């Protein structure tokens, strides 16, 4: 083989490698039945959670969860229900983070996935909702 041919083959291999790298970096697998089911469950619960975010009773925590922030505006009779909503949401979120890490063949990414989501939930939260920043609750 001529050196030029070898060089071209080498270049092609390198480019293929770079393309593969870009592809691997491009997307995480999130289209699995388990993730779809969790999304569906969370989407349905959001109808009940949205007014609680708006009133400030529930806030978007920094750790990728939601948290009971100020129950004083919630009638006593409904506090148990709000607690149950928060607990159910956080259970779904934990399962979601675990599933995304697992679906991508890296269960050890779970904490990183949670951290990324924690930042994105806060970033995407609506104006007026309470979010946790630097350990304090602030109203967006």
């Amino acid at each position, binding site marked *: *083989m*001529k*050196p030029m041919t*070898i*060089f071209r083959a*080498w270049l092609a*291999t*390198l480019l293929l*490698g770079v393309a*593969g*790298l870009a592809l*691997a*970096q*491009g*997307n*995480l697998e*999130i289209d699995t039945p388990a*993730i779809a089911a969790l*999304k569906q469950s*969370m*989407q349905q619960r*959001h109808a009940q959670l*949205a*007014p609680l975010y*708006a009133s400030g009773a529930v806030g978007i925590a920094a750790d990728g969860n939601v948290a009971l922030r100020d129950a004083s505006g919630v009638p006593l009779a409904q506090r148990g229900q709000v607690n149950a909503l928060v607990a159910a949401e956080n259970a779904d979120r934990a399962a*979601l983070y675990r599933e*995304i890490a697992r679906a991508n063949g*890296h269960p050890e*990414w779970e904490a*990183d*996935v949670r951290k*990324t*989501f924690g*930042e*994105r*939930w806060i970033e*995407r939260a*609506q104006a007026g909702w309470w979010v946790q920043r630097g350990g304090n609750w602030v109203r967006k």
Partner: protein
Amino acid sequence: MTAFLRLAMLGAVLASAGACVTINIYFPAAAAEKAADRIIDDVWQLREGATPGAQPDPEGGAK
């Protein structure tokens, strides 16, 4: 083509192939952000720029 050059090129190919395998060990932060945003769009129904709780467009609503 000297044997040395051939060996050097083989080394370079193996090194770049190795880099591709290694890279996936690290958490792909940018891809994770994109994935998170897609899921948040779905869960909070943020697609089409609609804000939950906002008055739905009467003409765009279901009939």
